[in-house]
């Protein structure tokens, strides 16, 4: 097996058993990045020197007998996470020159365990997009078919795992930004419950929806990553102070008697036939494993996309006000303060970001606030209640992640509404604040991966990981590799 195809748990065993060093593993990953990056474009910044230095430090730790599951493991993270001393752009020209003075809590936790940072991954600008086409640093291609998008906004995070450019990656998910690219690139992606992982040091898009999560080769790796990331952070008032369970140990407990809900609003006419087939196959697999299916309804699903695009853009319009050219980031030369503001922001932000700032500013404006923002918050409550009601009778829900497999580059970039609809099955989970995971569940006729979504109760990550693991053990989808 190639080193760069290894999972965290396999590489960890090899590091611990001294069959391989972190420097060797890191060098193998860097070589792999060099060879496939021209085809994929997963990275905005690669940090080879720092990576090798961190690998040497990890090897010294391992030699001392300190080998945490993540010690010496080469990872890459979305360019939305602040990394002290390493440029952090968030996919935007406005942060082209931004070198942060501090690191995000989530990355800091992995780093303290001895994880090695290979670099910063491409993404839609400010995480606004579903295709990675809105990045100011070029598009990312789907490793399964380089004429297709990898999904977004954590497109680089998914493509890097699929193209074996990192053992695992970090992404963020505001409306599906981990799960949709994971589905399109055939990897495992988890969006934890809101508050489970600290948002401190993660560049905010929509604060009440953003959540950090891992993208990995398999469910076991996902459990390892979540356990390292999860936990209360006194620097994030919205992080929740509940104990972090052992996510790995219960993985093998199976799904016998597990009640899985099938929300009827997610199995609609017009669902791509390949996706439909993959879902039917998954349901069959779970039946065979002893799970029980329950038909449920999430009646306000239809309003989710509209609700999301009011709340997320409203929050974004305010979150992005700090990019004003005064203290950091791009500053244009112009006459006067207003001129400087206008020009810096006009030059610094891309089309999609500007569109969302304008939408959100409008939704919060005097005279429109009640009709848009307040109304959207009320609908959000109804959507949350849908989930609470449904979860009274089921343990998890099973749905498609996206209505179609990865689409072609350029196909939807000029049709924002069509683009927004690609997140129709993932957005409600963010609005409800609960957790969900995407895992490989089949392939389209043209060979593109298709993901299945398991939605859990709030702080029910343990259950969806266990259900995902059982599925993975019974299928071989996750073992297939992109031929890039």
């Amino acid at each position, binding site marked *: 097996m190639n080193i760069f195809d290894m999972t965290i748990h396999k590489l960890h065993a090899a590091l611990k058993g001294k069959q391989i060093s972190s420097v060797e593993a890191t060098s193998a990953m860097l070589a792999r990045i060099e060879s496939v990056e021209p085809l994929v474009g997963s990275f905005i910044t690669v940090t080879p020197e720092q990576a090798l230095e961190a690998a040497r430090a990890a090897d010294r730790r391992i030699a001392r007998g300190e080998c945490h599951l993540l010690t010496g493991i080469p990872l890459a993270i979305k360019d939305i996470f*602040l990394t002290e001393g390493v440029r952090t752009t968030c996919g935007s020209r406005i942060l082209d020159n931004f070198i942060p*003075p501090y690191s995000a809590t989530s990355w800091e936790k992995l780093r303290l365990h001895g994880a090695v940072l290979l670099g910063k991954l491409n993404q839609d600008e400010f995480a606004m997009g579903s295709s990675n086409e809105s990045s100011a640093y070029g598009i990312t291609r789907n490793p399964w078919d380089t004429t297709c998008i990898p999904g977004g906004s954590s497109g680089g995070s998914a493509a890097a795992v699929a193209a074996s450019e990192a053992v695992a990656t970090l992404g963020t998910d505001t409306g599906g930004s981990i799960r949709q690219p994971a589905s399109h690139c055939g990897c495992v992606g988890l969006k934890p419950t809101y508050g489970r992982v600290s948002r401190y*040091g993660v*560049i905010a898009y929509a604060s009440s929806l953003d959540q950090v999560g891992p993208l990995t080769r398999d469910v076991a790796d996902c459990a390892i990553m979540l356990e390292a990331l999860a936990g209360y952070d006194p620097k994030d*008032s919205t992080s929740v102070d509940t104990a972090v369970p052992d996510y790995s140990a219960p993985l093998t407990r199976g799904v016998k008697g597990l009640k899985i809900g099938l929300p009827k609003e997610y199995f609609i006419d017009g669902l791509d036939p390949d996706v439909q087939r993959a879902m039917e196959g998954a349901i069959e697999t779970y039946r065979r494993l002893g799970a029980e299916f329950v038909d449920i309804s999430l009646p306000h699903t239809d309003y989710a996309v509209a609700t999301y695009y009011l709340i997320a853009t409203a929050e974004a319009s305010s979150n992005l006000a*700090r990019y004003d050219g005064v203290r950091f980031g791009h500053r244009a030369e112009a006459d006067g303060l207003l001129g400087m503001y206008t020009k810096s922001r006009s030059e610094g932000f891309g089309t999609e970001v500007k569109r969302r700032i304008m939408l959100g500013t409008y939704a919060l404006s005097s005279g429109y606030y009640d009709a848009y923002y307040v109304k959207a918050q009320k609908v959000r409550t109804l959507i949350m209640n849908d989930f609470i009601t449904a979860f009274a009778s089921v343990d998890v829900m099973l749905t498609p992640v996206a209505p179609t497999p990865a689409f072609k580059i350029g196909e939807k970039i000029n049709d924002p509404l069509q683009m927004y609809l690609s997140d129709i099955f993932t957005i409600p989970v963010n609005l409800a604040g609960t957790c969900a995971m995407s895992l490989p569940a089949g392939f389209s006729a043209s060979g593109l991966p298709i993901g299945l979504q398991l939605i859990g109760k709030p702080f029910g990550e343990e259950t969806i990981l266990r259900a995902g693991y059982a599925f993975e053990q019974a299928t071989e989808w996750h073992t297939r590799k992109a031929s890039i």
Partner: protein
Amino acid sequence: MKYQPVIGLEVHVQLLTDTKIFCGCSTRFGAEPNSQTCPVCLGLPGALPVLNKKVVEFAIKAGLSTNCSITPRSIFARKNYFYPDLPKGYQISQFEDPICQRGWLDIKITTPDSISADSVKRIGITRIHMEEDAGKLVHGDFSGRDDGSGVDLNRACTPLLEVVSEPDLRSSDEAVVYLKQLHQIVTWLGICDGNMEEGSFRCDANVSVMPVGSSTLGTRAEIKNVNSFKFVKQAIEYEIQRQIDLIEDGGTVVQETRLFDPNSGKTRSMRSKEEAHDYRYFPDPDLVPLVINDQWIERVRQELPELPEQRQHRFMAELGLPPYDAEVLTASRALAEYFEAGVAAGGNAKAVGNWIMGEITRTLNDSGTSIEACPITPGELAELLKLIDNGTISGKIAKTVFDEMWKSGKTPQIIVEEQGLLQVSDSGAIEQIIDDIMAANTGQVEEYRGGKEKVFGFFVGQVMKASKGKANPAVVNELLLNKLKG
């Protein structure tokens, strides 16, 4: 036509916490620019606010002391606007559901028709909310450059309370009395240093006028950032007259924000309603709703000091002080505490009060010293008063001793001993003096004996002078009377 002014005040109170409202940076005044900053108060990407609990407790204290209800679940909101001193492009404040609501202050006002009799007027307090301050712009000399403007974010994220009154004030005098009373409360509570020059306590005034007898409020102008009691009075008076003149000339008052210029004593337009910002307030998703339960409120209530009004009543009821003395002695918490310490050290309440209001206040004023830095302790003052009471020194000599205590820091006993200021009560010694004086002033003795009793005062003066003020006046009186009557 006669006009009735209508005034409401918005007061910004900078809180005396050690650290900022949403981060751990120091709030100390006057440090090197930007030396007291971190990712949170610099508004760096990814940084998140965490509420300082002390700020909440200070806000609860302010609310309880102004008869407000404490909101069980209050919300922080973002106020969005662009300015270089506002790092995030929004200020975290409170909009709907502020921490304190619906309170009042009873202010003492003197009405023109009954100048002597104070009456009490209740001024409604609409709300008190918590918010962060902005940084400040420094023009010219900054970081070794003199050709531009700099931003100093040391003050950014400093905790403020905004206290908003109802438009219940009807004159500049009422506004000043309200403001002084509020100032007294927040400094008394120890939640604000009250320094108006440094901007720790600053005020915006909403002013309108309407014809007397009308119940429809006129259009108001908001006057920004007036930073002394004197300026508040000036600004409001100017604004009232400006609006009246405008209406009398057939014009109309427009809703606008105006700036007071202390040099000219005038207000001038800053921006009109049309130019006003749309702040696009919405709940800050980075902060969870602030839940305050009854136990928390009770715990803070227990920590409240006795407030000025309560203390005045106690001074009157328990110590028998006249209302005027009680009010003067509770002008500040430090003064009231000085007074009480003096009484506790054995001083007679009325006497301690008189000395504080007299000699001490005068000497403090003359030397520009605050009561906190008074070189004479309350215990030493009480000692001095005891020396008068037990006849060791006379009241006149006591003033000399007081001056010496102030200068040298010595105790009254030591000064009396060192300078030989003991009162002379020995009748033999005093008789001798009287005899000498009567012998030298036979003419006046005759006058007295001839029925001109006024001359008695002359003899007392002469005896006291001859004894250098040390003779016991009671003994002098008695002996003189006997001798003159012969």
